[in-house]
């Protein structure tokens, strides 16, 4: 599986990188055609081997110093450069003590090898996945094309008008529960996007990111709320999940304030549970209330597909995760 032909560019400053992106994408076109950003390479090279990504240029951000730093904010929040490695963040005592959910999500990513290479920006922007197409180009020729290969078809739900590939990344649910803010920059300027608004429920176009834009920073605001992350994988190590959950919750014991429950790996975007959160805020974290929240969840999962596992089972996993996460958060001081 040779890599498609491309040219590797290595900007040494953020300005140079943004100008490169602007110039390379000036003629328009899709995000992945002209220039693809690369940091750790664990997702990009994987997708290039499968010829999902066939960019003319790879723009490496490994030498862009602005993206490698962690800045401490006055209130105890952290502003994290997108090219910080997952392992370095997981080993950072500030993240360990202040944001357990984030730390747990970082530890949950793939394997030691991948965490030693992969970056936070890469995980936040992880390509969506689908087992009908996530194989080599030759393999894909064995069946009809789909949205991922420029055809108007979805193998997961044939009647669908969009792609149902799954967002399997571990850190987004945790960052969403923690109300993280993303900084997106281009030569045109800079904008801040709440991470909850960054993802879209379309496997082919799952991020709010223009071809000339670069995710530069992830800001995690300080919080005193309890928080945690869990994921369910068929295999304990080195596996994508069939369901993941992140919870942040104010208050103590069964009293819950300002609760946020986010599910990952169910759809093309992480799902923020609204009604279940309302139930818990109103009635607390008692067993009966948790069961009621689970009942309320059903309508918010959207169309659960048979991708990577039976829909009935994935719903069961989601319920179990919600139950276990809420019980666990109740026990947290």
């Amino acid at each position: 599986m040779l890599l498609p032909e491309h040219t590797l560019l290595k900007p040494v400053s953020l300005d140079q990188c943004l100008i490169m992106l602007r110039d390379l994408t000036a003629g328009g076109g899709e995000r992945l055609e002209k220039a693809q950003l690369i940091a750790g390479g664990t997702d990009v090279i994987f997708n290039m081997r499968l010829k999902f990504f066939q960019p003319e240029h790879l723009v490496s951000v490994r030498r862009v110093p602005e993206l490698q730093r962690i800045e401490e904010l006055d209130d105890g929040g952290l502003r994290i450069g997108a090219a910080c490695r997952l392992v370095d963040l997981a080993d950072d005592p500030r993240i360990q003590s202040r944001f357990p959910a984030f730390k747990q999500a970082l530890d949950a990513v793939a394997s030691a090898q991948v965490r030693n290479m992969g970056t936070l920006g890469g995980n936040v922007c992880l390509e969506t996945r689908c087992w009908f197409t996530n194989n080599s180009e030759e393999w894909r020729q064995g069946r009809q094309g789909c949205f991922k290969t420029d055809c108007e078809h979805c193998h997961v739900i044939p009647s669908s008008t969009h792609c149902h590939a799954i967002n399997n990344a571990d850190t987004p649910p945790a960052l969403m529960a923690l109300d993280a803010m993303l900084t997106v920059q281009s030569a045109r300027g800079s904008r801040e996007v709440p991470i909850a608004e960054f993802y879209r429920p379309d496997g082919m176009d799952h991020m709010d990111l223009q071809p000339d834009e670069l995710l530069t920073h992830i800001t995690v605001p300080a919080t005193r709320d309890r928080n945690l992350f869990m994921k369910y994988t068929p295999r304990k190590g080195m596996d994508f999940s069939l369901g993941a959950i992140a919870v942040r919750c104010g208050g103590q014991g069964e009293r819950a304030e300002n609760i946020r429950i986010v599910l990952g790996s169910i759809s093309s975007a992480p799902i923020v549970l609204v009604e279940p959160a309302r139930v818990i805020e109103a009635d607390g974290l008692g067993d009966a209330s948790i069961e009621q929240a689970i009942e309320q969840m059903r309508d918010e999962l959207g169309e659960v597909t048979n991708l990577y596992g039976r829909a009935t089972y994935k719903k069961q996993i989601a319920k179990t995760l919600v139950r276990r996460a809420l019980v666990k958060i109740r026990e947290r001081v």
Partner: protein
Amino acid sequence: MAKHIMSLTVNGDTREFAVDDRDTLLDVIRNQMALTGTKSGCNTGSCGICTINNAAGEAVLSCLTPALEWDGESVTTIEGLEADGQLDAIQQAFVEFGAVQCGFCTPGVIMSAKALLNKYPQPTEAQINEGMAGVLCRCTGHIKVKEAIRNDFRLRINKGAESGSGR
């Protein structure tokens, strides 16, 4: 495709190579340096068989690394663990505790173990399981691999005592 000249230090030896943008570290190590101890496996980051260590002694996947990205950097492969004609303690432990069977995954498994031990010289069971989850092994059932890892520390101490220089 156009070739670029890059420099890479492998196991302490610095050399220059002509590579194109498509070449990965694995290609350079296996094909240009003829260091075939590092095996080519799935090439997509799942099997861990191509694992090498970076300059910091961390496990990385050579199959997912564009060679040009590592211009000027330094790596260690399985061939680089031996020193003064002696196997490294972890290599010795793998032999002694029967942690090797077919041997194809062994270089990747050992480089993963080495990185694990660099980070945690006396790892817990949980650290061993997580540290070794990135590599696939069909033969050994991992039991004797874990035993070798648990015994590396003891071998290293003994070795240090013998040569009079602890590590």
